[in-house]
């Protein structure tokens, strides 16, 4: 755990931090409100942040409204994580002209500072670092974008109803993977941020900020706030979920979930760790062609198509693939869980399917079937 090294004032401090980032040539991206929804977009100054706005979420439900305080970062999670910044929803990966000259489109990545990244989304980027850089291959397009990203994390004080990062061990406080991290405190008449640096770039920026030394009572308040945030989460994943999903291949519960699931793929699109893509060749009228990589979803039948049919034709099999991959097989593939507990798949599911609730049902079913289940 990195120690806090500075206390900055809410308004002046944030303004200065953004100015320093811009002075260093970073595009600044942060929380913005668009069409009634909090998302990540360009911000020119701290005044652009949706200060005081909060989100209410539930299964299939997201609403934005004014909160009770003028704090910046309570109970907000952008609709998408950092995925689209490091991995665009579609892009040309090769271009072919008439005589088959191949050009590889340059990755256009201006150094970008993302402001107010939650611990879950920091963890999700760490997961992408493993997926797209697993030896012997490195996805150079991902790497160029990832390495151009500066992450200013912010600890969560008030989680959303759909959050369960505490049970995934990824939040509510950011512990690694950031360049800078902020903790918003508004106790005893003062409102500001504790700042800590997690990288050389972060330390350089921190050195340019005006602030005060961190006091012990602020550190204690931060700890209490973190504990309260974790305690406020009503959803959680069973601790043994990885072994539960691996043992549940033949569970009748997949059919029950599939009777509700529309296989619309919303969950995979909003998930910050879902990395699947397809590769399609496309043509322009002038005879040029290009190869495009675009986000894809295991919820489509074509995803697993081989000679004459999909391997996973049935909806239960496709829901099972998604959940078992996230929570079980991801461990085999990458040595970690593929779920960071952000809860987006719950909020953005049109029928409100809740991955934590489904996991608890599977766990309870197994426990009934095998009273002394080992944790293998």
């Amino acid at each position, binding site marked *: 755990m990195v120690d806090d090294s500075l206390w900055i004032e809410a308004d002046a401090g944030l303004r200065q931090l953004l100015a320093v980032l811009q002075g260093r040539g970073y595009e600044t991206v942060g929380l913005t409100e668009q069409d009634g929804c909090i998302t990540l977009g360009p911000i020119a100054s701290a005044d652009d942040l949706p200060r005081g706005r909060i989100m209410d979420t539930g299964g299939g439900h997201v609403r934005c409204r004014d909160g009770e305080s003028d704090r910046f970062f309570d109970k907000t999670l952008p609709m998408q994580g950092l995925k689209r910044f490091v991995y665009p929803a579609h892009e040309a*990966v*090769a271009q*072919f002209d008439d005589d*088959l000259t*191949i050009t*590889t489109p340059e990755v256009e990545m201006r150094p970008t500072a993302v402001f107010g990244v939650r611990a879950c989304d920091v963890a999700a980027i760490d997961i992408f670092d493993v*997926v*797209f850089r*697993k030896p*012997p*291959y490195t*996805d*150079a*397009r991902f790497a160029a974008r990832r390495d151009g990203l500066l992450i200013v994390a912010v600890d969560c004080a008030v989680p959303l109803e759909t959050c369960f990062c505490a049970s995934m061990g990824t939040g509510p406080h950011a512990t690694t993977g950031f360049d800078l991290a902020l903790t918003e405190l508004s106790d005893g008449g003062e409102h500001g941020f504790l700042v800590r640096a997690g990288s050389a770039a972060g330390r350089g920026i921190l050195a340019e900020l005006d602030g005060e030394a961190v006091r012990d009572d602020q550190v204690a308040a931060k700890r209490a706030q973190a504990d309260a945030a974790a305690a406020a989460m009503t959803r959680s994943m069973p601790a043994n979920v990885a072994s539960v999903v691996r043992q549940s*291949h033949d569970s009748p519960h997949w059919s029950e979930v599939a009777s509700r699931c529309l296989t619309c793929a919303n969950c995979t699109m909003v998930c910050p760790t879902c*990395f*699947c*893509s*397809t*590769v*399609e*060749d*496309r*043509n322009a009228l002038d005879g040029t*062609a290009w*190869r495009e*990589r675009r986000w*894809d979803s*295991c919820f489509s039948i074509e*995803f*697993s*198509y*081989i*000679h004459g049919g999909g*391997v*996973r*034709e*049935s909806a239960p*099999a496709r829901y*099972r*693939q998604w959940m*078992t*991959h996230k929570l*079980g*097989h991801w461990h*085999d*593939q990458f040595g970690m869980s593929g779920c960071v507990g952000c809860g987006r798949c719950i909020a953005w599911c049109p029928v409100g399917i809740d991955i934590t609730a489904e996991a608890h049902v599977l766990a309870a079913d197994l426990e009934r079937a095998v009273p002394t289940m080992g944790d293998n």
Partner: protein
Amino acid sequence: MPRSMAAPVWELGMEPVVYQVTGRHQELVDTVTLQMTPVDGPAMSFLPGQFTMMGLPGIGEIPVSISGSPNDGGPLTQTIRAVGKVSAAIAGLGVGDRLLMRGPFGEPWPVEEAVGRHLLIIAGGLGLAPVRPIVYWALANRGRLAGVELLYGARGPDYIPYGAQLLGWLASDRMTGSLIVDRHSDEWAGPVGPVTELIGRHATVDPAKTVAMVCGPEIMMRFVIQALEARGFADSDIWVSMERNMKCALGWCGHCQLGPVFVCRDGPVFRVDHVRNLMTQSEL
């Protein structure tokens, strides 16, 4: 250590290299074997069992095994059956036509496992293409092997690729083997039935001193595994090559997942004891 670490690790990504067709042979009514060299530089070197992503601009890209000899460093040889849009377009290429290539990809057949032992190769249908490099390798390394046997099952006499070469191999004293076809026909005097028939009747090997490499439709491989085990083979001595939808071959697109494994990079060649329950669970 992954087996392919023995081969050079290339800077592989999504960018293809342009190859040109230098030879074309119509194997079967719907199947061609192409020989190809890059427009610039030498053809890729590869290990038996590896595959490439073959493509045509604006049409698409598909995984295809390398079916030629790994020994001679000559042109790249691949055998393509026209089953759909991309494969038909590639099968329709002629000498001088150009195409896009990425690779080689995948874990190869563990041919060194066979040194000092019998090598039993069992193939069905176009599953002969991915095992043909094993035969080339085995014949070049014949002195290090106790024996080489090939069991091959085809739909009918008209569906046997590499026909003359295959008969030549089987007639030579350097290897043994048998062919079987699914259906009776007038011009076929050999055995009729599934390839598993040959395991009981013809395979002459001692399971304890043999390693088996199997390639064909998944259902055929399941039956072959059963038959081999009935003959006393340990599942750790049986290897199979799996097929799944593939869009990248790099472990990035997710399409080839089979439970915990990515067929493109952890396979396509697997030891049976590592994938047994993955081959039997439905819609995995």
